[in-house]
Structure formats: C-alpha cells, structure tokens
C-alpha cells in the first residue's frame, strides 16, 4: 500500500484576502509568514503562495547542503537550520512561492503544517483554508481489510461501492449487515446462487423491512449479552424514504440500537433509474421523463435526514464522499450512537450511470453538491441539536452543480430558479435549527467560517464584505 499525506487546501473562491492567515502564521512561527495571500488574475480575487509539500520537490533538488528533505512518514518537507547555508536557492527553485524568506534574520521560512493543527487554517474566517486529513484516513484505513471481495459488479465509478468499502473498513468484522434490494446487493454484496461478495454476515431483507429486521437482531443480541456487535443497514433511498419508511420511522421511534446508513443516489437506480421520494425536483428519471408535457420530476425531494431529526434519533448526519474526513468522523459518532439508540447516516451518492455524469466526475459532483448547498453537511444529536460540519455560507450557485449532471440537462431557467429557491429555503431552515441549538462541545466544533450555532467563533462580516467588494 502506498502512503498518502494530509495537506492544507486553499479554495480561492472563498478567500476574501483578509490576511488573517498570514498574521496567525507569523505569530505562531515568530517571523515571516510561511503563507502569502496574493492578488489573483481577476480583480478582487486572491491566490495563495504556500508550500505544497510536493511529491517531487524542486526545493530539495536544488538545495546544495541537504538542509531540506521530505519526510517519508508525514510527507512534510523539513528544513534543518543547522545544515542550511542560507543560499536561498530553494526559494528560486519553488515554482509556487512556497518558501518564504524571513528578512529579519535572512533565513528561509518553511511551512511544517504546525504538527497537524495549522494556525493559518484555524483563523481563516471564510473557510478558504482547510486542513484535509484524507491522507491520514487513507493510511489508517487503507491497510485495514476490505470486507467486500474485489470484483463487485458495480457500475464504473460507482460512488456507492466506495461508500460500502470505506464504511465497512471502518466498522470492521464484528458486525451484521443488511442490504435491502437496490444497487448494493445488486452489485453482489449478498451474492448470487450461493456465492457472496461480503465477508461479514449479510442479509438481504425486503425492500420494506430493513430497520424492523435489524431491530429484531439487535434486541436478541442484547438479550443474550452480545452487545458489541454493530447491527447495521446499507440501504438505498427507495427502501428508506419510500416503502421502507414505516420501518425506519418505527425503529427510530422505539430507539432501536441500529446503525442505519442510507446511500442516497436519488432514485431506484438498480432497476432502471426510476424516481424515488428523494429524487430532486426537475430530475430526469425513467419515470419522470422529459417530453412535451413533462420536464422531469415535478415534486421536490423529501428531506429524509431532516425528518429523522424529528424522530429524536440518537444521531443523525448527512455525509458525502467528497469530504471523507467528515464522513469518517461521522461514522465514528454514528457507530458509537448505534449502541445507545437509533443512528441515522444519510450519504449522498451521485450515480454516474443514472445521473448521466462521467465516472471521473463523481467526486467532483459530490464536492459541488456540498459546496453549492444542494446537500449541506450537518449532524444532529438530541442533546446538542443541529450543527453544520461544512460551511453553508459562501456557497456556489446551485447552477454550477446541476450543470455538470446530465439528468438536469433540460432544465429551464424557471426550473433552475425553483431549485435554487428550494436550496435556499432548506438552508435557511437548517440555519434556524442550528441557531437554536446549544453550542457543540469543543471537540465537535465546526471549522472557522461555518455557519455554526452560538458558541462558535464570531465571524467578521463587515471586513469581509469590504474585501469582497
């Protein structure tokens, strides 16, 4: 297995040029800032000059004294002050302006990511800077056993398969899995003619009864003292939001100790891309086609995770493979909660086949769906209320998201306006719920710039407005 590294990411679209990151860095490092915000090509836009901890670092290559070296463990290019001859060749060698010169001492300043807690990221008020821990997730879980066999017959680029493999790596062998009819058993998790693709006990419940049947398993396991087993579903949106809803609702009401993961690809994709209750307005599906009299689905999607909060579940969260760190953190909390009550995780899962997107664009679609607030990421518990885990502020217009997806190709301006209005409405409602929630514990605090409930760092809207103008 290869090694992956954490990194500081920069989203130019969110940067307002305030420079707080530079101040924080120079304070933390006691000298020149290792990060620079510079004017972008367009007026009012900004770029950053920051060490990218390159895989094939030119700074290391040009260093005549061996003072710079890439650490194979954490991927950080370290600078050894005792070896450095202050030639500054590295600053010339770096094409990204990633090594600063500290004029006061005439030495270089090199980003070391502050031991995984970068000062610049912490102060960024807009969320333009983010410390992405995908590398450590890969290192930690990539080595764990994949609990599905290779060769599951998912479509090329299938996001649901990614969810299954990641989720089960995290959850491990001490689990009982139910995969109701849909894409997940369809690709072979439960198997065909006596052969299975899953290495944990797996059951193919009815489309309608997943949560009920899991309740029975959990109750009996609790009764005989086997309380450490994760009893879970990997279910589609149809079996969850539509005909399986009575079972989900009943189990949640009873507080059954079950981890219910809904993999939402917005339709009955396994059976030919028919509409479901979570199919968004305007979507082309095989039962909401585009023609002279109909232009895709005429109803809005049911917001199932929001409905689940009204069930006072132990834990409810939305997640996306576009933000794996967030997904992994939520899996941790969802698993823990499933030993105390009903735990519901709703993972958005673009379907390259049914949505008409190239498989190479699936993760981009995941990201944009979050970044446009089409699928905002949040979590809820019955004690801490609702909080966003990814900023709903500074969102891209939803048009950027729907444009990349073929099932929206026919949208009229009116339909697009309707979708934007519904997204705004939904975010407004979520924000209202977040605002009325108690402050989350520090460990769960959202990154700076998120629209968080009371207790988060106060933002500085006035200054940002100026910078944006």
């Amino acid at each position, binding site marked *: 297995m290869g090694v992956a590294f954490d990194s500081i990411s920069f989203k130019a679209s969110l940067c307002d040029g305030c420079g707080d990151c530079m101040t924080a860095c120079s304070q933390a490092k006691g000298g020149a800032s290792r990060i620079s915000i510079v004017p972008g090509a367009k007026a009012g836009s900004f770029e950053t000059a920051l060490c990218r901890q390159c895989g094939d670092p030119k700074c290391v290559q040009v260093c005549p004294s061996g003072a710079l070296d890439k650490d194979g463990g954490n991927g950080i290019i370290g600078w050894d002050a005792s070896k450095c001859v202050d030639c500054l060749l590295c600053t010339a060698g770096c094409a990204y302006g990633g090594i600063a010169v500290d004029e006061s001492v005439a030495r270089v300043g090199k980003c070391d990511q502050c031991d995984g807690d970068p000062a610049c990221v912490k102060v960024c008020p807009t969320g333009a800077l983010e410390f992405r821990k995908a590398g450590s997730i890969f290192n930690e879980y990539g080595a764990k056993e994949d609990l599905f066999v290779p060769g599951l017959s998912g479509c090329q680029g299938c996001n649901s398969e990614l969810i299954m493999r990641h989720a089960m790596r995290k959850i491990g062998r001490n689990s*009982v899995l139910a995969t109701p009819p849909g894409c997940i058993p369809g690709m072979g998790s439960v198997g065909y*003619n006596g052969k299975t693709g899953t290495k944990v006990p797996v059951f193919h*419940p009815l489309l309608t009864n997943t949560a009920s049947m899991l309740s*029975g398993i959990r109750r009996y396991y609790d*009764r*005989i003292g086997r309380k450490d087993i994760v009893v879970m579903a990997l279910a589609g949106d149809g079996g969850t939001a539509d005909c399986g809803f*009575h079972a989900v609702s009943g189990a949640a009401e*009873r507080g059954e100790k079950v981890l219910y993961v809904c993999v939402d690809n917005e339709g009955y994709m396994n059976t030919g891309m028919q509409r479901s209750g979570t199919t968004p307005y305007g979507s082309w599906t095989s039962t909401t086609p585009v023609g002279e009299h109909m232009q895709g689905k005429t109803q809005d999607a049911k917001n199932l995770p929001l409905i689940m909060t009204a069930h006072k579940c132990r834990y409810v969260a939305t997640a996306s493979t576009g933000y794996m760190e967030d997904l992994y953190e939520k899996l941790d909390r969802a698993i823990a909660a499933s030993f105390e009550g009903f735990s519901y995780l709703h993972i958005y899962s673009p379907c390259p086949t049914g949505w008409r997107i190239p498989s190479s664009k699936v993760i981009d679609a995941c990201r944009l769906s979050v970044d446009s607030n089409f699928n905002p990421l949040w979590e809820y518990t019955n004690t801490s209320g609702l909080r966003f885990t990814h900023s709903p502020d500074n969102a891209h217009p939803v048009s950027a998201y729907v444009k990349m997806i073929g099932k929206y190709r026919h949208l009229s301006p009116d339909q697009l306006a309707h979708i934007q209005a519904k997204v705004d409405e939904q975010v407004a409602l979520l924000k209202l719920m977040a605002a009325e929630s108690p402050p989350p514990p520090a460990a769960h605090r959202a990154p700076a710039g998120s629209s968080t409930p009371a207790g988060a760092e106060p933002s500085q809207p006035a200054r940002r407005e100026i910078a944006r103008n």
Partner: protein
Amino acid sequence: MNKVSTGKVIVCDGNEAAAWGACLSRPDMVAVYPITPQSSLVEYLAQFIADGRMDADLMDVEGEHTVLSVLHGAVLAGARTYSATSAQGLAFMFEPYFRTPGLRLPMVVSLVTRDAVSPTCVWGGQQDAMTVKEVGWIHMYCETQQEILDTIPIAYKVAEHPDVMLPVNVNHDGNYLSYGVARVELPDQSVVDAFLGEKQVNWHACLDPERPMAVDPLTGGAGGIGPSLFVKYRKGICAGMQDALRIIEEAHEDWGRRTGRYWSPLIEEYRMEDAEVALVTIGSMTGAAKDAVDDARASGKKIGLVKIKTFRPFPAARIAQALSRVKAVGVVDRSVNFGWNCGPVYQEVLAAMYAQPVRIPMMSFIGGLAGADITVEHFAEVVHRTFRLAGGEAATGPVWLNEND
C-alpha cells in the same frame, strides 16, 4: 416420563389460552400489533411480560409488517419467537410472511381467524387463513380453548424439528374461540420445558459475526446452477412439509404422554366406525357438528365426522382412508374458494379422494361467515342433505348455511 402431570385449572377465553401456550413455550421475543379479534391476546402477552411472568422481549411495533420482520431478525440471530394476528393484519404481514418458510425459519404465530374485507367485517370466519394456505406455513386448526393452549408448545416442537424447520400457524376461530370462555388446564412449566427441550439455533440461516454467511442471496436465473439450486430449496420445503406429518403425530403423542391430553394430530375421526355418511369439519364448528352427529345417531342414522386439525401439510392419505368406506360426504367450510364456487376445505377433500377407486359423492356447505353461528340446526340440515346425496340425489352445492339467518 409416563407420569401425567395435572396442572392448575383456570377459566379463560381462547386468546388467553393462546397467550398461556406462548408463555409456557418461553419465547425470547414476542412482537405484536393489535387487531380484532386478536387484540386481547396481545394484551395478555403484554401483561404477562409486565408482571414478570413471561421472560420475553416485547416488541410493540408500528404494524404487522414489522411484527414479522423483527421476528425474522430475531430468529436469524437465534431466538425463539411468537406472534399472533388476524385478517387485515395477516394481509399487511404478507410480504415477510411469504418468505418465512423459504428461509426455513421455525416460528409460531397464532392466527385468530377472521373474515377479510371487503365488505368490511371484523367478525369470525376462516377466509384469512385459507387465503394463505399455499405459502409454505404449517396450519393447524383448534377446536377448543384447551386445544389452543396445548397446540402452541406442540407447534414449537414441530417447527424446530430438524426434519421440518418450517413456521407454524396455530389457528383458532375469531369471536367463538377468541372470546368464548372455558375451563382450561395449565400444564406445569416443568412439563413444557421437558417437552420442548433446549432451544437449538437455526444454523441453516443465521446471522452471527462468528460464523459469517450471506442469508438469502439471489438464486435462480437462466443457465448455470441457479435454477437447480432454486428447485433444491423448493423441494426441501416440500420434503419438510411431508416430514411434518410424521413429526406432528410424534409431537402430539409425546404431549399426550406428558399431560394426559391426546389430541388428534392430523384428523380426528368421530363415530366413523360404521358410518355410511360423513361430515368434514374444521375448527370450532366441530362441537356443534358432533352434537348433530349424536342427534342423528340417536335417531338411528349411521353418520360420523372427520375433523381436520392439520390443514397444511394436508393429510390426504388419512382423509382418504377415513372417508373411503362412506357413501356420501358433506364438507363444511367457514370460508370461500372463489374460483371454484365452493369451500376451500371441500376442494382439498375432493382432491384427496381422487385417488380412491370409487367415486364418493360430496357436497360443499359454507357457513359461519362474518361471525355467524353454525348451529346444531344448521348441521342437522347438512346431515339431511348429505343423506339425500348418499341416496342418489345430485350434489347442488355450495349450500350457504347462513344465507337466510
């Protein structure tokens, strides 16, 4: 072993008798949803559990679909389970009901039989149970409150037998048996415990991280081993059903030895030794039918009765043997077989008699629909018509016994 235990005597209705039967069988989990005329059965169970008399996990859920679904989960994890339903509840339960025998899940569910809507009707009848007779569940019909209580532990013994591994419905007539009160003897818990023995985990299909397996993978499809595998499963259920005939007899015999109550396991023959005509009955109507037979016998008519206790698997050979010597048969149903314009039990008895060398005239009688009484007078009419049939008159069924009540 042969010491017969006489238990405590109580006075209760059929629903309470069923609840006691379940209680004594020590299920780990009971899932219930109330529906008329089963509702009081649910209440008895809940009270038993509330009182600590019954050590079972009570699942009060949102509907019968979930009732059977949670029990599926529990049985797959190794539990012994119990539930009860009626009519619309059974209909709502049908989707998981359909797959229970296919998964070879040994469970016991009481059907408190009822006529099914429409027209809307909440009273007794056997239309619900008769409608699901082809699904693969074993069906046993009880005549009395005591038989209900005794049949439930017997049903567990049958369901969990390795040669059977099929779910069992213990049926009792809604309204008549569900609400009718009678003297019932409660066997000692120790008697039932000894009778049932240790519960065995159903390793055919089990969800346990210690023994990972995929339960219910997709099976079939054209080509390859799929269709033959599917046939193997189907034949397995058929074989389990046929083996159940023997196991049901053994279990009843064993129960009789321990309690002194020997119920006829498959069919009961009443005054059949020299009978010239026979009635065929099922369920609680049998009491009135026996009285009518006694009355006819008192007036010198050679008549007998065959009560069907086990309806699935159908004891065809035993029926044929019992009826082969009579000149005419009147079959009384409490439900309707719409496609054949007769009662379903009649249809079954006809099929069982087909292999006989002599064609015996038979007639279908349908009574007791929508909670109506089937009285001794009704049965006197059945006796009268059946003797006319034996005398050479053509069959003109079905006769709707309650048509003018």
